[in-house]
């Protein structure tokens, strides 16, 4: 888009003609999207628009019916499993409710990917865990279990775990759903902070406008499984599409009046 036009860097993620159906339900109809290194892209959409399904394709949790997903030059829809496994070490994903392992405490949760994929000593692991926790501003809770944490804290620990292996790409699945406005603002700040500090590419899906405009370099909107608008925050606000405007203003779009 306009932001990238002057330099036209190579996209780090390219999604081409992505289609996905579950039975009769066509969730993703035809998605084309390039994501550039170092940007923070937010994908907006109403509940059930296919945002989560889209994000899961980026890491290979779902396989498309048609289309290609090219991450760091590797087409994960056709690459061998071993290559995809290797690639996933470069991607950190944060899940809706944190998806922490509830049999492990916070320390072991964050240490999990490190112990699994590196040969670091326990001291090095501990250093990295503390580093990750301080980046999400959650120092001192290493011994707590996920059940003892609040929703916002669980998500931050989830962030810390996602960045443990120093990924190049971070994916956030609805990071503020179910949180109060103050926690939402805190999460937005943490995501912004992580993005700036680590220089990673961040892809966030949400329907939370405060979060979206708080962290986005660029926004895109999914509706009925296609991308109907994209652009910088300013461009996005000016977008003439009636649905985009309805979404931004919290109104019921004209073509959905009948269903409400």
């Amino acid at each position, binding site marked *: 888009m306009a932001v990238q036009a002057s330099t036209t860097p190579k996209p780090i993620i390219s999604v081409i003609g992505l289609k996905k159906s579950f039975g009769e339900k066509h969730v993703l109809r035809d998605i084309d999207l390039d994501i550039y290194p170092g940007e923070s892209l937010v994908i907006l959409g109403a509940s059930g628009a296919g945002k989560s399904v889209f994000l899961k394709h980026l890491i290979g949790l779902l396989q498309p019916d048609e289309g290609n997903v090219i991450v760091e030059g590797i087409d994960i829809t056709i690459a061998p499993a071993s290559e995809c496994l290797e690639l*996933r070490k470069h991607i950190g994903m944060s899940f809706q409710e944190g998806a922490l392992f*509830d049999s492990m405490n916070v320390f072991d949760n964050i240490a999990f990917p490190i112990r699994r994929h590196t040969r670091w000593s326990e001291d090095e692991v501990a250093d990295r865990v503390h580093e990750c926790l301080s980046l999400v501003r959650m120092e001192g809770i290493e011994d707590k279990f996920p059940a003892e944490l609040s929703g916002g804290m669980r998500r931050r620990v989830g962030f810390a775990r996602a960045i443990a292996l120093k990924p190049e790409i971070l994916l956030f699945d609805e990071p503020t759903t179910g949180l109060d406005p103050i926690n939402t603002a805190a999460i937005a700040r943490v995501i912004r902070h992580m993005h700036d500090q680590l220089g990673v590419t961040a892809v966030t899906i949400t329907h939370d406008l405060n979060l979206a405009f708080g962290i986005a370099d660029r926004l895109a909107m999914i509706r009925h499984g296609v991308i109907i608008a994209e652009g910088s925050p300013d461009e996005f606000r000016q977008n003439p599409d009636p649905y985009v405007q309805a979404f931004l203003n919290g109104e019921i779009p004209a073509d959905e009046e009948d269903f409400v």
Partner: protein
Amino acid sequence: MMGWLDSLGRWFIDVLEEIGRFFNILAQTLLWSVRRPFDFAEWLRQMVRVGYDSIPVIFLTTMFTGMVLALQTYRGFERFHAEGFVGSVVALSMTRELGPVLVGLMVAGRIGSSLAAELGTMRVTEQVDALYAMATEPIHYLIVPRVGASFFMLPLLVLVGDAIGIVGGWLVAVGLFHANTVQYWHSTFQYLEVNDVTSGLIKAAFFGLILAVTGCTKGFYTSGGAEGVGRSTTNAVVMGSLSILLSDFFLTKILF
């Protein structure tokens, strides 16, 4: 008429899908079991969970089964003065049939259900997806040690159970009916062959494999939140127990 055919067809497809999932998980488990890293700590933890933690249940089950067996056969054999064979009957029944099947059923209830509940909860809270996202194959990390532990621990549990059952029979015969201890032990080992014990242990290993793969499969394919986890747990026990009883017949036919 069509509605009836429709639901029959759907049921048939569901059954085929279940079987397909079972063998898919089984095949992937075997494939991943030879790949590194080997998580010894996790293997040990699961072996303690399946084996050591099951001992109290197995103790009570096999002890009372041995006792009842002696009680029943003693009363029956008395009628034609064959009390001397009670030891043989208890030993052969325990090692060949009751030990493996009862231990299998008890562990299916204890472990099959807890595997389904554990993996099912991990599935619906996206912990399974999180593993995958952290470049860790869930089958490798979660299922291989659980199925492996069950496969190796079941024969050991059955070996212990066989012994406890035989002791239970002896307790009743000697304690209640004042049978001669020496004669009881003589009768126990008189007709017992190594093959009786080993074939029971082989059956047990298969039962361990079946109940763990069933529980893991149910848990792994859970959907639909807390209700889904409940459904998976129930199904794991029902399907696990039924599979044990059905496969018992065929294994017995092959092994003996």
